[in-house]
Structure formats: C-alpha cells, structure tokens
C-alpha cells in the first residue's frame, strides 16, 4: 500500500515538473504540434457555430483559419475549443488555447489584470436590448420593472447594471452561464428582455422559435470593441495575430480578393507587391516568423475582411448586419490598418 502511494506521488511530481517548462514561444509550439488551438464561442450563429457534421464556420472561426493559413499555408489546420463566457479566460491563461477569437470585448481590466493582450478590433459592437413586440416597448428607458436575461461573466452584465442604475430603472436580472440557457429561458418567457452585444442579438433572434415576434430596441448602451486576445509575454505571437487582422483589412483596401489573388500578385503597384510578398528581397513575412507568402495564404483561405464580413454576418448571410462602424476608414467606418511596409 505504502509503495503504491509512493509511486503515485512520484508520478504526480514528475508530471507536474514537466508542465512547468511549457509556454515558451507560442509560434514554435503551434508549428511543432501542427495546428492552431483556437478558443471560440459555444455556438453563436454567424460568429462561431458548428454545423451538423461538426465543421465550424463564422466570423471568428475565419480568424482562426486566417491565422492557421498565415502559419501553415493551410486554413484547415485549426482545432476549436468551444468556451462559455466564464471558461474562456482560464482557457487562454492556462495555455489550453493559443488564441481566443470569441467575440470578446477589449477592456482595460482584461488587458492588464487578466494578463491578456488585445490590439486589433475586428468588430466594433455595442450592447443592445431585444424585447417581444407584444410588450409595446419603444425604448430601453421604458424597461423599468422588467426581467432581463443576461449571460454571466460578460461586460454586458456590468453595463446592464450601470445603465439601469444611471437611468433610475428597476430590473430583475436572470443570469445564466451558457448562451443556450439564456436563449431557452428568454424563448420560454422567463424574462421580458434579452441583452447582449447587438450583433449577438441579430444572431440569436434567428434561433428563437418565432423570430418575427421580437424586436431590437434602438439604444446602444455601450462600446464593445471585439477582437482576438492572446496571453501577455509573447510579442511575436501577439504580432502575428494582430497582423493577420491588418492583412485582411489591407487586402480589402487594395481590392485583393479570394478570386483575384493570383492576378493581383502580378500587379505593378509597389504597395500591393510589397503586401503580397512578391517584391524582390522581401522580408515582409520572415520578420514575423512566417513566410513572405503569409498574406497571400490568408486571402486564399478566407478572402479579405469585407468577404469574411459579408459571408458570415453581412449582406450574404441570414444576419444581414450593416457594415456601419466596421466599414473601411475610407468608406465612412473606422476599420483601419497600419501600413504594411
């Protein structure tokens, strides 16, 4: 008996020592294991949701694919970890996922105390409210006394408390951990109001039993800049994840699409040549720790930012969300990429 306990203890100690040495350069780890481990939502149509055969698709999922394409020239080398709002941060902190592309709001607290790094914002969002049309509510300011369904562990939960307090409104929070539970409770009439990021509301409305019975109120009560997050302390990986987004934006700006990428490689425009890594003596990708073809590979895998947006959540999807703030800076939005130079 004593011997078996001893063996177990020694075994545990050895395994623990092994774990201590993990977390060196994320890029090397990713290359060694041959895929990117990407933390995504458990199921938010348009952003990250598996289909019947288990294939993931969506706006955030395309970011995972783009990162994989930049590294491996193959957008399929991704493994997905579905995470609830509560599970996502420990998953990234512990190194279970390499990057978190899960409609996560960039806040100062998450950037500092939680030990994450955010830079590019791939979707500028804001928090909204959805109600049943039958309630005859026209504004969020008429919601005093309502029961509000909300997902726990989100900035949404905090904004909700602040907004109702600031406007002297009463409410009764009904809080769940998983998105599906919030949906089910709202659909069953447990609460009068559903609040989350407005993009999420459009997505969730499609999953309700009678989508047309629900309306989204005009008020946007918060700034929700959503973007991919990585752990602090690995600048190279942080740069790669950031520049994948900027490459998508830059490609849209240059008019480089999935369809015309091969043609564009022959472009005489020096900016485009540099961006696509066909310039003589190019170091545009190798300085990132990737190949010079990295931007080409991203666009081949998912297209440019506009294509990703339209296909998943924009005009070409059931969600039909307007570009709005997410249009390019040159077209009235605020999506902007630093120069690729």
């Amino acid at each position, binding site marked *: 008996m004593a011997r078996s306990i001893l063996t177990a*203890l020694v075994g545990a100690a050895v395994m623990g020592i092994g774990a*201590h040495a993990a977390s060196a350069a994320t890029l090397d780890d990713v290359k060694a294991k041959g895929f990117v481990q990407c933390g995504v939502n458990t199921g938010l149509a348009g952003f990250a949701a598996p289909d019947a055969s288990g294939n993931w698709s969506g706006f955030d999922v395309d970011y995972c694919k783009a990162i994989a394409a930049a590294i491996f020239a193959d957008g399929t080398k991704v493994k997905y970890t579905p995470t609830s709002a509560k599970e996502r941060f*420990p998953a990234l902190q512990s190194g279970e996922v390499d990057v978190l592309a899960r409609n996560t709001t960039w806040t100062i607290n998450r950037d500092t105390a939680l030990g994450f790094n955010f830079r590019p914002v791939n979707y500028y969002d804001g928090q909204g409210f959805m109600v049943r049309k039958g309630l005859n509510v026209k504004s969020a300011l008429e919601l*005093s*006394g309502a*029961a509000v369904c909300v997902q726990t562990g989100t900035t949404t939960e905090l904004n909700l408390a602040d907004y109702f307090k600031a406007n002297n409104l009463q409410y009764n929070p009904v809080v*769940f951990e998983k998105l599906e539970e919030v949906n089910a409770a709202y659909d069953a*009439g447990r609460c009068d109001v559903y609040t989350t990021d407005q993009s999420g509301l459009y997505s969730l409305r499609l999953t309700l039993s009678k989508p047309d019975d629900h309306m989204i109120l005009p008020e946007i009560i918060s700034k929700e800049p959503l973007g991919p997050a990585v752990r*602090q302390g690995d600048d190279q990986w942080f740069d790669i994840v950031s520049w994948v987004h900027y490459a998508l934006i830059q490609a849209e700006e240059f008019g480089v699409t999935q369809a015309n990428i091969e043609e564009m490689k022959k472009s005489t425009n020096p900016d485009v040549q540099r961006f696509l890594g066909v310039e003589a003596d190019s170091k545009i990708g190798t300085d990132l720790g990737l190949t010079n073809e990295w931007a080409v590979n991203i666009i081949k895998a998912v297209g440019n930012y506009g294509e990703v947006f339209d296909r998943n959540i924009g005009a070409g999807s059931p969600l039909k969300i307007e570009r709005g703030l997410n249009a390019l800076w040159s077209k009235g939005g605020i999506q902007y990429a630093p120069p690729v130079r």
Partner: protein
Amino acid sequence: MAIGVTTTPEKSKPSGSIINDPQVRGIFYQVITVIILVAVVYWIADNTIENLKRANIASGYGFLNGRAGFDVGQSLIAYTSDSTYGRALVVGFFNTLLVAITGIITATIIGFIVGIGRLSHNWLIAKLSLAYVEVFRNIPPLLVIFFWYSGVLAVLPQPRESAALPLNIFLNNRGIAFPKPVFGDGSQYVLYAFVIAVIASFLVAHHARIKQEATGQRFPLLWTVLGLVIGLPLLAFLATGSPITFDVPVAGKFNLTGGSVIGPEFLSLFLALSFYTAAFIAEIVRAGIRGVSKGQTEAAHALGVRPGLTTRLVVVPQAMRIIIPPLTSQYLNLTKNSSLAIAIGYADLVAVGGTILNQTGQAIEVVSIWIIVYLSLSLTTSLLMNWFNARMALVER
C-alpha cells in the same frame, strides 16, 4: 512521530539487518511519505505563484473589497451593484444556505413518509412509494433540476395571465408572488406576544409531561399550544389597532409589482433537491425500520398499543440510531448538489463566485473560497448530526 526506535529490548531482535526490522521500515515509509507530501505541496504552491507572476495575472484577496458592478436576482440581504465582491459572495452563500436548509427539511419529511410508505401493508401505498424511490434514485440530479425548471416554466402562465390563488397569492412563470407584511408602529408587541406564547408553550409541555408521568393523565397539549401561539399574538394585534398591513402584488407593466416573489429558479432547485434526496432518505428510513427487531413490534402489539403509536413510539426511536449516520451523508450530498443551481441560473455561491471569477479573473482565489465554504458547511452539518446522533444513541440503564 515520537516513537523511540531502541525502546523494545524485551522483543527478541531478528538476527537480520536493520532493513528487515518492521518497525524501522514502518517509520521510514512514514517519514518518506511526509517529506514527499510537503515537497509536492510546496512545489505546487511555488509553481503557481511563479506562473501567475509570469503571466502577469493579479493575485491576492484584495479584490473582495472592489465594487461588484453586477446585480443578483435573489438576495436575502441588502445588495446592489455598488456593493463589494465580498458582499456578493455572502449573498450567494446565504442563497446556498437557504436552499440547503429548506431542501433538507422537505427531503426529510418526504423521505420519512415514503420510507414508511414502502413498508405499508396497503398494496397501493407500498407500490407508489417503490415507484417514487426507483424513479428519483435512478435519474441524475441535474436532470431532475432541469425537469422541474422546464416543467415550472412550461406549465405556469405568462405574467399577464397570472393564476390568482386565494389570499392574494399569484402564480406565473416568474414565480409565486404573495402579499408582503408591512410592519407599522406597535407591531413589535405582536412579536413580543408571539415570543411569550412560545415560551409559555414550552412550560406547559414540560408541566404536562411531569403530570402524565406522575398521574398517567394526559393533557390536551396540542390545542393548548395552538391556542397560545395563535391566540396571544392575535390579541396583541387587535389590541394595538392592527398595525400590520399587507403589500399586495398588483399587475404592472411587465410583471406583478409589490409583494414578495419566490422565483422559479429557487422553486425548481428546491423541489428537485428535495424530491431527489428524499428517494435516498426513504431507503435509509426503510433500512432503519427493518433493522429494528420484529419482536419489538410484536411486544408492543401484545401490550395493546395501536399500530400507528407502535411505529411512532417504539419502532422509529430505535430505527433512528440506524438512520442518523447515513442521513448525514444525504444532507451533505444535498448541500453539495445545490451547486448545480448554476445550470438554471439560481444565484448560489458557485454561480455568484463564477461571475466574480470571470470579472476579476482571479480563479485560484475564488476556487479556494468555494472550497473553504463548502468544507465548513459540510463539517458543520456533520458536527450537528454527530451531536444529534450521540443524543439519540442507546442509553443503557
């Protein structure tokens, strides 16, 4: 381990080396085990601190004084989003305690009824009890909770079509709304009257027992106590000019406003835990009763004691000695199962702690608080039950 190695001279020493001395080997293994245990604990703690530092994650319990910023649906104490994280945890703790205590009481009552029912000579009662036990014992508790929750939500009407029950009680899928007493000036006298009535009841009961033991005459205790406990506060209430009024729920824009509300989350969790645990308690009760020698019942019957009284006065007191120790485990299980509340959004300790964990990112601290609280709750329950067990133990004369 202060055991001297050389203090056994009278034992015939084996001729082999010291390695074969069982006592030396025993101490050796113990020392090695303790060293390894301490080393592992130290290594884990050191590694954790090191990793947290390297990942730039904040640590320490200072966050408990920070502003929570979120609201909680149901709270037994005053709480707003301006309260601290620490207070939010206390809210969750009380909610856990509330569902655990009410659940334990109800589960015990149902469990005893069903357990005794299984031994009934009435075929229908026995089979119904058997079916109850087998159904609830063989379903995971989470499913029972979902069953009640979706059942409660699906069956109850929307707020605008609330079912009106007598006494201004309303039922809808937001819970049960009932009038809330509002205590005006002078209502403290009603409370005093009630306290006096309770004390008086104990005195009367004590007196009645002494009288019965001395003379064999029985005193109508139940009616006297009922009269005291209801009558005295009622007199005080009328004498002070009806100071207590009721805040009755009325239909508001979204839901009923006013009155008090018990939410469907609490209701379904409470019902699920009670019914689930009651199935196990029923089996424990049945085992306990079966464990009492049949001769005891026969002796009671031979003395002319009626079957109901036999169960109450002869069988159950003896069965309790068998029942209490496993009952303790069931109480502990119920308390711990209450953490499944998170699945239906009841704001218990785990749910509130989970929110805090997410907002502050301080997983290790929050998890350690969870562990300490549940450990203390369980140890307290065990202590109480052990004390109760000691009281009920056979006293030999």
